[in-house]
């Protein structure tokens, strides 16, 4: 059973998708469902013997192009709707071992071109209002298959966190005439203490308002809303800065740092959304090498994050992590 259930208290949709209880959970070591199929072995999700980058519909989707009708009736208090949308899996490489960090800048650049293409294709569907590209990395985040991969959720609504970002940006623009994110980027560059890295097109930093100790954002210097608006040069620069960021994460403590990685793009709901500004957000779940940051009662039940650290100190740690960057974020 699958449907959208409206939460009238928080005014947001909840997706139910009961078949996801049966999804693949930590498959045996000698069988990876995301590796290419090999003669004489059990078939995998990918029928072919190799690939560069491949996307496919998730076998256990939260949203579907042709969803079932809701199993419960819609009421005035509790509206329900079909869970229409698309959930894709994106395989970065046929190689089972490794992570996105180990891909070359050229390969990460190719992945960015694929992300842009999926944004165009999925965003053009008349029932899609938001294309969310993301990666959950590490068992701490609940990853059940280790093969390097990310996901795309194409939503029939704008997810609430993005809706808040868009509303804040629209309010700021109405009040000042400027882009909120451009102002944030300007403030971060002027202060400088929270900058981690930068190149010609992008800036990496631990934002002033970081909620997780090592929360890191990548802001585009140019005011643009989504990947398809980027030039080839900007996509290359994004690949380079993404590689630098991931290398720093892994060299921080000498472990492959788990994270949630999300691309925040403007919606595909038909409105221009000139107020929005492309950026990426990373939420590593650790607050020290051994200690996880849990989303406990205050975070989960009240919606207020308590960050036990200072963004200024964490940015300095990340600047020192290899490849080291100078105080202004340029590579040493």
């Amino acid at each position, binding site marked *: 059973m699958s449907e959208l259930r409206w939460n009238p208290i928080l005014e947001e949709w909840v997706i139910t998708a009961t078949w996801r209880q049966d999804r693949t959970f930590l498959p045996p070591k000698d069988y990876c469902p995301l590796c290419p*199929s090999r003669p004489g072995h059990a*078939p995998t999700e*990918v*029928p*072919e013997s190799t*690939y*560069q*980058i*491949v*996307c*496919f*519909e998730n*076998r256990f989707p939260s949203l579907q192009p042709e969803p079932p009708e809701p199993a419960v009736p819609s009421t005035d208090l509790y509206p329900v709707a079909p869970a229409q949308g698309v959930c894709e899996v994106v395989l970065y490489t046929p190689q089972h071992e490794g992570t996105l960090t180990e891909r070359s800048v*050229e390969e990460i650049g*190719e992945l960015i*071109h*694929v992300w842009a*293409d999926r944004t*165009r294709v999925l965003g053009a569907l008349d029932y899609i209002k938001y294309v969310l590209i993301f990666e959950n990395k590490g068992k701490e985040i609940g990853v059940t298959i280790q093969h390097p991969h990310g996901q795309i959720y194409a939503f029939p609504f704008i997810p609430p966190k993005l809706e808040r970002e868009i509303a804040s940006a629209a309010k700021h623009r109405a009040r000042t005439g400027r882009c909120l994110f451009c102002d944030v980027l300007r403030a971060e560059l002027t202060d400088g203490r929270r900058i981690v890295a930068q190149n010609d097109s992008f800036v990496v930093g631990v934002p002033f308002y970081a909620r997780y100790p090592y929360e890191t954002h990548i802001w585009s210097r140019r005011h643009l809303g989504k990947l398809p608006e980027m030039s080839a040069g900007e996509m290359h620069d994004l690949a380079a800065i993404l590689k630098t960021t991931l290398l720093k994460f892994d060299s921080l403590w000498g472990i492959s740092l788990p994270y949630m990685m999300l691309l925040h793009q403007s919606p595909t709901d038909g409105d221009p959304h000139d107020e929005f500004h492309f950026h990426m957000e990373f939420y590593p779940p650790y607050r020290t090498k051994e200690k996880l940051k849990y989303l406990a009662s205050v975070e989960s039940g009240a919606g207020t994050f308590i960050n036990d650290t200072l963004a200024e100190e964490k940015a300095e740690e990340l600047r020192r992590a290899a490849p080291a960057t100078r105080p202004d974020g340029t590579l040493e």
Partner: protein
Amino acid sequence: MAVQEPAEAVKPADAGVSARETLIKIDIPEPGMRRREVRLSDGRYMVYYEFERRG
């Protein structure tokens, strides 16, 4: 979007499509990026992206 070959003109075997897949289309959405979309036997689609690599 430049379409490299009309889908109906491509024989699955020539396009490297396996027995578990049915070719939907092949095109080049941007220079240097080839996109091959197939239908899996359970009805889901799969899109292979191929790039001209320098190395």
